[in-house]
């Protein structure tokens, strides 16, 4: 498979057995999604062939792939916003029809209910997908892939935005499918998931296959090394550099986006984690702090001064940086270059009387590319063509091109990026803290929170339910607070 200037896949042999869960791992840009898209008929291969049950298949469209028995949960969310959940489920398959040929809506909703029960969306079949949360959209995609009896089901990073309960639920579904003889291909950057779930794992690097291994016979660290082609020191807990100087104080913060009476302090040099399940309101807190949404109550004090009235530009001027959870749609202008994105926030500092000082811009961006090791190191490359990890680094670069921020809010900063890039992002977070910034880290990656944070707050339904210190925080404790509460509320 060839993209302009990139050989995305180079002579890869890959096979999956009947009734096996086969994981596919590799760095960002290793070619996992490309392989899957070829399997799914999205791109034609330039060389090679695909065999299903020993028979050569030759298809050129997703439709034909579906017919051949392959079903895919793509990495990107692919839903049609103004159509109902039920229609999204069936569109492209075949909507149930009456004898007149018209759509049988009653049957459609009935069928959809049955099929979506496995992913828990049975009560939402009539909702327009546009009103669903990101997680619910992902569950819909999963439901679509698993409920039509495909021979091979492919998951490309299905858990990126799912909560632990939903992940557990998904794993049960996947294991059931396997037990019924379905073959599963599973792509994820979360190695713990792979070792929990998969029977075998294929490792890709730079579009080439490195090898296939039984998960029982390798360790996560070995897989990481195979992926990166080098040794990666395993990440331990980072050294704290937290001071006792409060940089950000939040008192009684509430909003009509569901945040209720949130209080916390953030210190200079501190990494404060926010844990919670999807929909717990973490993003909403971040948006309030950054001035995207207006609070209905409470105070935000930065460096002892109250931020009011609050707004994005005011937040930036005060020294707050925000790395949103969805880099492609909120973080980047994809049709702009690395350079243009990196300088978007502080372009004024690189200009004289409003005119861009190109030499200075180039220099600043060159330095950022170096210090963040953005690859390829081309300032003029469109961010559209960067891998996820590098895209994330560009979003970070935006906040480092000017005055160093006092408070950095990161919302799922390592979601969907590979272990190597992840380590680099972690390094950056550490650097920022060491330079005296206060870091607010929203993450669904438990290990990440535990490794990086000085303190962790747990949110449920817009409220903080627990403050945990570095020493008392464990994965189990966090989950316990985040979920037991969730269940209590759900069944209260």
């Amino acid at each position, binding site marked *: 498979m060839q993209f302009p200037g990139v050989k995305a896949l180079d002579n890869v042999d890959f096979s999956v057995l009947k009734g096996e869960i086969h994981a596919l791992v590799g760095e960002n840009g290793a070619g996992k999604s490309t392989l899957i898209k070829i399997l*799914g008929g*999205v791109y034609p291969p330039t060389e090679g062939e695909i065999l299903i049950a020993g028979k050569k298949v030759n298809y050129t*469209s*997703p*439709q034909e792939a*579906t017919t051949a028995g392959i079903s*895919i949960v*793509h990495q*990107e969310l*692919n*839903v*049609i*916003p*103004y*159509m109902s959940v039920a*229609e*999204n489920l069936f*569109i*492209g*398959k*075949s*909507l149930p*029809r009456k004898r007149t*040929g*018209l*759509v049988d*809506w009653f049957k459609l909703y009935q069928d959809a209910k049955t099929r979506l029960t496995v992913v828990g969306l049975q009560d939402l079949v009539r909702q*327009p997908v*546009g009103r669903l949360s990101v997680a619910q959209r992902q569950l819909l995609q999963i439901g*679509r892939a698993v409920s039509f009896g495909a021979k091979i089901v492919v998951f490309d990073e299905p858990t990126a935005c799912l909560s632990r309960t939903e992940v557990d639920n998904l794993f049960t579904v996947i294991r059931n499918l396997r037990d019924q003889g379905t073959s599963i291909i599973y792509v994820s950057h979360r190695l713990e998931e792979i070792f929990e779930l998969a029977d075998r794992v294929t490792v890709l690097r730079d579009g080439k296959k490195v090898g296939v291994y039984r998960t029982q016979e390798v360790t996560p660290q070995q897989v990481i090394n195979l992926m990166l082609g080098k040794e990666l020191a395993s990440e331990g807990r980072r050294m704290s550099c937290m001071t006792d100087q409060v940089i950000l104080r939040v008192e009684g913060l509430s909003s009509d986006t569901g945040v209720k009476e949130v209080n916390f302090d953030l210190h200079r040099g501190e990494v404060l984690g926010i844990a919670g399940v999807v929909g717990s309101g973490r993003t909403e807190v971040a948006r309030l702090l950054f001035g995207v949404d207006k609070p209905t109550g409470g105070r935000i004090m930065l460096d002892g001064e109250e931020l009011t009235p609050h707004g994005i530009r005011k937040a930036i001027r005060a020294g707050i940086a925000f790395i949103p959870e969805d880099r492609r749609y909120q973080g980047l202008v994809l049709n702009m270059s690395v350079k243009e994105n990196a300088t978007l926030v502080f372009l004024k500092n690189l200009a004289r009387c409003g005119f861009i000082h190109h030499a200075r811009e180039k220099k600043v961006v060159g330095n950022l590319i170096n210090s963040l090791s953005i690859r390829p190191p081309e300032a003029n490359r469109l961010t559209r063509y960067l891998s996820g990890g590098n895209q994330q680094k560009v979003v970070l670069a935006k906040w480092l091109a000017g005055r160093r921020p006092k408070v950095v809010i990161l919302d799922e900063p390592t979601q969907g990026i590979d272990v190597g890039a992840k380590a680099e992002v972690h390094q950056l977070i550490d650097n920022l803290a060491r330079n005296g910034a206060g870091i607010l880290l929203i993450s669904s990656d438990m290990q990440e929170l535990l490794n990086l944070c000085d303190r962790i707050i747990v949110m449920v339904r817009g409220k903080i339910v627990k403050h945990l210190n570095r020493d008392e925080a464990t994965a189990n404790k966090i989950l316990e607070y985040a979920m037991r509460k969730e269940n209590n509320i759900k069944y209260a």
Partner: protein
Amino acid sequence: MPSVLRKYGTIIGFVILCLIFSILSPVFLTVNNLTMVLLQGSMLTIIALGTTAVMAAGGFDMSFGSVCGLIGVLVAGMLVHKVSIPVTIIAGILIGAVFGSINGLLVTVFGIADFVATLSTMSIARGLNYFYTKGDPIFMGIPQEFKIIGQGKIGSIGYPVLIMLVVLVLLYIFMNHTVTGRQIYAVGGNKTAARLSGINVRWIRILSFIIGGAAAGLTAVILTARLGSGQPTAGEGFLLDGLAAVFLGMTMVKEGEPHIIGTFIGALIMGVLVNGLNLLGVQYFFQDILKGLIILAAVGLTTMGRRKEE
């Protein structure tokens, strides 16, 4: 109340407008006048309904007015050359469909942006029109039986209104209750998602243009029958009003997608506006100004109501 506004702002605006007109003009709310408005608006409605399909599939068409104009004179020409009426009608619709499929191919296979592609076919259709007519209207020898299509009535309802209602119902069913119709919306909603779920996106897009073209062809048939002649410049006026009707219709649903009933109401609004202002004897320049202001007010109400909620 604001939630009502959000949902029905445009329609409420429309109703208020009708109220004002009926208070100010004794003629407005008469059966005669309203059937006339329907009659006058039926062609705009049909052509705009076709464009609704194009836009529902995420496309855009600038050519339908000129294509309608071209087919109008071709239809007249065929009749003058003694082609039978049914054949002429079918040919008119088919030529529209052919133009639509050319648009569709240009957009999908050749990857030319909708706007550029259809602007070009608009220019070509207009050129062909003048090439064929040399600018002269064609009116000698159009049979009376054909004119009936545009000028005849059942009771007080003109044939064009009946045809429009049939098209409305058929397209409504097609777009909302058939698999293909839903696929059109799916493609318009998210091309990638549609493709990945196995929809033949290219064909669906071409099909939407074919529907748009066929609607322009049918409109041309009715127009020629109503004008009793093939008029070289007829049809061009449908472009802006047709687009306005679709866009007005789009304000009537929360998700803002083009839809059949919305377009119908949008076309009605355009028709009622002109009729009411004409009845009141409002000077033509005030009409332009009022038309602009009223559309802004109606749509503004809706969108403001909506924004509050978000």
